[in-house]
């Protein structure tokens, strides 16, 4: 039997599973503590659910006055702006007011006029980053930053750095099975096989990503209800139309960078096919698989 360490902890709204083959147990326990501390540190800084996080402070104050932020948060926001440009606006950390609009929408109580007002008021262009003084300000008080489509990829990148610091060669890290980082290879192979789950036949792989040092991130806009039916949770809003994405879609992206995988899997849920191909070229090397469940059956597109 192969020497194998595995453990998990709760963070970022899901569970993080650490699988470390072939590493001494004492070191694994130490590594687990290091990883957990690091993820908690990242979460305590990035989460909008924690009232004292830097992001929460920005959300509270940046519409009134410029907020000076840490180098790390400033760097993250700059990165998010770059990815927003790269994805032609599909990746956008300022869409929360739109999500909130749809959450609260009652056909009788709101109008499309309000939707358009919200769309005008949000977008990365409404987040101003100061030059040199690491200040962040919002153009209006409707703006709110939500790093939900970025945080796990960012955390995985930090986990990867920690593991490299300790010269760990082989590892498999999973945030809730949707954001996966691999290092090295499976003990019985020369890479890791990451299957893409088929929701019409759970347990069957629709596609297999062969990964060495890299990440696979999957985004979707549905859940499987108690009767096994796919149900759109309408939490994915198309920033170009302002409306929720109605089809049941998953987008999986393999990339050397866990951040790229995370960002693109989020952005490609609302991106047209020809634009996906275009963006993918810029982001190489990466592999993109989109699954559209039409009538419950998967239609697969590999880019």
């Amino acid at each position, binding site marked *: 039997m192969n020497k194998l360490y595995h453990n998990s902890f709760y963070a970022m709204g899901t569970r993080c599973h650490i699988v470390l083959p072939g590493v001494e147990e004492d070191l694994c326990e130490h590594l687990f503590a290091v990883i957990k501390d690091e993820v908690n540190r990242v979460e305590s800084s990035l989460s909008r659910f924690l009232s004292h996080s830097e992001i929460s402070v920005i959300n509270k104050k940046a519409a009134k006055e410029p907020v000076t932020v840490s180098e790390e948060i400033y760097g993250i926001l700059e990165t998010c702006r770059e990815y927003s440009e790269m994805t032609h606006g599909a990746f956008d950390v300022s869409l929360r007011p739109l999500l909130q609009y749809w959450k609260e929408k009652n056909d009788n109580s709101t109008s499309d006029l309000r939707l358009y007002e919200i769309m005008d008021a949000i977008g990365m262009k409404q987040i101003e980053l100061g030059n040199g003084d690491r200040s962040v300000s919002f153009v209006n008080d409707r703006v709110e930053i939500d790093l939900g489509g970025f945080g796990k990829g960012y955390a995985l990148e930090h986990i990867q750095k920690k593991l490299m610091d300790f010269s760990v060669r082989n590892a498999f890290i999973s945030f809730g*099975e*949707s954001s996966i980082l691999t290092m090295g290879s499976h003990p019985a192979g020369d890479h890791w096989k990451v299957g893409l*789950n088929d929701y019409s036949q759970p347990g069957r792989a629709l596609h297999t990503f062969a990964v060495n040092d890299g990440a696979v991130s999957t985004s979707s806009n549905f859940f499987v209800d108690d009767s096994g039916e796919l149900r759109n949770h309408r939490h994915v809003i198309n920033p170009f139309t302002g409306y929720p994405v109605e089809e049941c879609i998953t987008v999986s992206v393999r990339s050397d960078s866990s951040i790229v995988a995370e960002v693109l899997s989020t952005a490609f849920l609302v991106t047209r096919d020809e634009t996906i191909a275009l963006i993918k070229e810029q982001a190489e090397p990466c592999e993109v698989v989109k699954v559209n469940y039409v009538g419950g059956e998967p239609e697969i597109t590999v880019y």
Partner: protein
Amino acid sequence: MQINRRKFIELTSTLAGSTVVASAMPWLSAFNNPAAASANPSDRVRIGFIGLGGRGKALLRNVQDFADRLNVDIAAVCDNYDPHYQEAIELTGGEVPAFYDYRRMLDEVELDGVVIATPLKVHMEPTIDAMSRGVHVFCEKAMERTLDRVKRMYDAHLEHDKILLIGHQRLFSPVYLTAIEEIRRGDIGPVTMINGNWHRNTDWIFYDAEPGSALDRQLNWRLYRETSAGMLTELLSHHLQVANWVKDAQPVSVTGSGSINFWKDHREVWDNFSLVFKYADGTHFKYSCLQSNAHNGMQIQALGNKGMMDLEVNKRYWEDPPAPPAIRQMIHNIESNLFDTIPIGGATWVPAEPVAYGGEFISDDWEMNETQLYLEAFVDFIRKGEAPEKLTLEGYNASTWTLLAEDATYSDRHQTLPEQYLV
């Protein structure tokens, strides 16, 4: 039934290795260290039955099941309602003396123990009369209709040095015994809340009789305040005993409210109520009963910071649940040197998953007949001449606090235990 008992003894042997048995479930000695009993007539335990309605007949059948094996003589039966009296004769093949008056039964038949399953308000007299004649008592729950009568039963047990057991059968349930051991061991962390409910959708009328008539009051006694506190004494008392057992304490106060909001017929007892019991460490036991919707059924849950025991459905859930299937499969494959694709990438495993994940069974042996196990223990304790006092107190504390809960719902004030009832 032999298999049933053997499995239970296996469980009690396992539990015997635990340090909590002596403090939390000393009555398992009836199975781990039973009294020696031969098949000789001199070793025979003679049991009489008082009250042979639905529950009484069930208790009789249970004893019949093990009578030969444990050398028990069903020595007499008694009920003052003729149909039940006749059924008792039928059930015992006409070979057992039958009585309408329990006093005559106690006077005329040599008994070692009686099983009492009369209506609630008719528990005290037969209990005290039996014990004063040197007969041990197993009495259905709850103990009695008022605190004074409950206390008098308990005092008689001390005064006559006779066994008094109250029929809270969960005390012998493999699920509850296993769960209590795990809770005491700290597996789910300190228990910080207990939730329970018993919801039904029924009129609760057992017998056809002219509403309000003397016969109705005799047979459907559960509906009248003079003879019953309704679902408080009949249902809550079971789960209150469990809550006390889980907390290893009795409450310090109870508050609550009740009403009749659906069955607006001749009944006098609540058809719904909600209660909050408080324990000294600040834990609350939240409980409700309802007779107009059965969706939530019967449940009692002990919640700790590490996990939750959902006792009536034999499930435990961890706050830190096991890895999802794909991760487990990957771990298995690595350990087995298999290099297969694991379908893993997918929608985020949502935070609600700890609730959605199916939990684990607390005990494999949950289908056992715990009432019968309790009655077997009663026979063993009769042979030994004593039973663990903690077992009697489980019944006493559940009964007193059930009646205090009733007081709370009628007074709209929180209630505490008056000092004279503290034992």
